[in-house]
């Protein structure tokens, strides 16, 4: 079923979008519900979507809007009790640290100069093929690979300056 494949392919990406929109302290349950709603919207709108536009951007926009709606209805709180209960002490801190790092990483990608931000975003978050991205931004595939490599290093530098990696701590 095509929807199943879409769920498998885009859940990691959409969860990053939604967590980034809702904040690191949003519960996994809330994020899961928002992401699920985005896929349901995709199913409902499947006949009206323009295949040339690609569904990733559409899904991301829907997910983001739904995250905003969710925040309007119930502003983000700290990690909920059910998650806290499952992950006591250090585990809870670790989870929060991972989510905060995920947000910082997302923002750092947004700060990369064009076309590197687009390149990283489409390759790592959206899972697109490198040759398709390279074509769209007018690079050869080897050149795109090289840019990705440099962008990874740049991201590490940005995050280290922000004090979020081991490098900064050490």
């Amino acid at each position, binding site marked *: 079923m095509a*929807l199943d494949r879409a*769920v*498998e392919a885009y*859940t*990691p990406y959409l*969860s*990053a979008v939604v967590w*980034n*929109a809702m*904040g690191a302290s949003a519960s996994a349950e809330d*994020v*899961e*519900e928002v*992401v*699920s709603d985005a*896929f*349901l*919207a995709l*199913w*409902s*709108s499947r006949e009206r979507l323009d295949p040339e*536009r690609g569904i990733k*951007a*559409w899904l*991301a*926009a829907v997910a*983001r*809007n739904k995250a905003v709606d969710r925040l*309007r209805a119930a*502003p*983000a709180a700290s990690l909920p009790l059910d998650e806290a209960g499952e992950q006591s002490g250090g585990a809870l801190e670790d*989870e929060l640290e*991972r*989510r905060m*790092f*995920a947000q910082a*990483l*997302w923002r*750092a990608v*947004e*700060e990369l100069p064009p076309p590197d*931000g687009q390149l*990283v*975003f489409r*390759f*790592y978050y959206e*899972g697109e093929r490198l040759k398709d991205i*390279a*074509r769209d931004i007018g*690079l*050869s595939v080897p050149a795109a690979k090289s*840019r990705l490599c*440099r962008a*990874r*290093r740049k*991201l*590490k530098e940005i*995050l*280290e300056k922000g004090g979020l*990696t081991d490098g900064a701590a050490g």
Partner: protein
Amino acid sequence: MARLDKLWRAAGGPGTPPGLDARRVKARVNAALDTDETERKGYMTKKLRVALIAAAAAVALMGAAFAANVMWDPLAYWFQGDVSSGREYVDSEARTVSGQDYALTVESSVGDERNVFMTVTITALSDKAKTFIHASSIGTFDILVPAKEPDAADGSLRPVGFSSSELKTEQENSRRFRLAANDLPYPVDTLFVCCSYMEEGKRVEVPVTPAPSVTVQIGASGTGDYSGLPASAVGSGILLIKEVALSPFTCQVKAEAASRAVKPRIFLRMADGSIRTQSQVMEETGGEWQPESRETSYSYRFKEIMTLESIAAVIVFDREYPLDGSQSVPVQHDFSLDPFTVRRMEPLAEGSGFSVPVQELTERLGGTFSQDAAKGEAACTYRGVTIVLQAGNETALVDGEAVGMFHAPAMQDGGLAAGPQVFRDAWGIDIHIQREKLGQGADAEIVWGDWNILP
């Protein structure tokens, strides 16, 4: 998830990236589809348009950010050069709407009948909002205009397309954006700006006082521009240009086209007799194409503000259409302004795109070129602007002013090769590389061609 894992590790992330279990999402989706699909479908019909517009905004937000020079004048954020001639049209009255957590302020606006350019600020009011104000999605806007469809209810609004990008201001509790309503479907007296994070119904009402514009009736057919595209993408290539509307800020073209890929090539005859090309004076900002009727609109924003008095006529398909409405007259075709191609040169470094042959480009444009082979230095002049390039030197001199390039030019096949950007910026020409996709899906290959040049 493997790719994100790799990025996560490379960036020094702790453990593994947080994420959801796709199996749980799938189970939730399938369970919901078994229960209330009809209700959800109705809901999404209303939301779809807004979602697509939000997607456009998200793409815009991924683009370049602006410098930290804080100004209230929207002209400075949208137009190059001297913007003083447009100031008389700027509405500098700040308008604010406040909600529980955020305030949205439209600081200033300016526009014409089809486009409105604004600067807006979102300010966090509550402690909760202050912790969230720098989330990437905070700049998710909607722009609404009064609906004019025959079946629209009184007072109903419809969303319109827009573009936005953030203006970096380093403010702790607020963020500023430039925001433009592009290609409005019809002239409006008022538009409404909303921030998605504010309560339903909270919106800033912005009066629209359009700057004067002139519409030139054309009604002429010819071959449009489809440079660099395979024939399969452009149909006949024939374009019927119906009218061209000019304001100090934009140029709007209405046409009928066999394909959305075909673009008009129009020129402006300036009051001093000179001719300006599209590449020189405007940037494409959008447009629409209706496949059934082939009705097409093209929207362009001028790079620099144009006074209408400075434009004498529009030139289309070798006829000149005066702005004063007088009879059109034929003009001699200027072959030096036709599109042409130059060779694709090798990338200048690992990680760079293809390069252009400097001498070939300059001479094909009709410019002058000189080279000091011993120094690996070349001077090329076109449209009165001289670019001096040197092999191995990442700094170009444009009319004596240092301009940084992404990669240094290099000698290739006995001639100097350089990246295209410096020529785009200094000479106002379009340079894009030809490419054709062969095959479909995983087997598709891209065949790169030569550089296509539009003077």
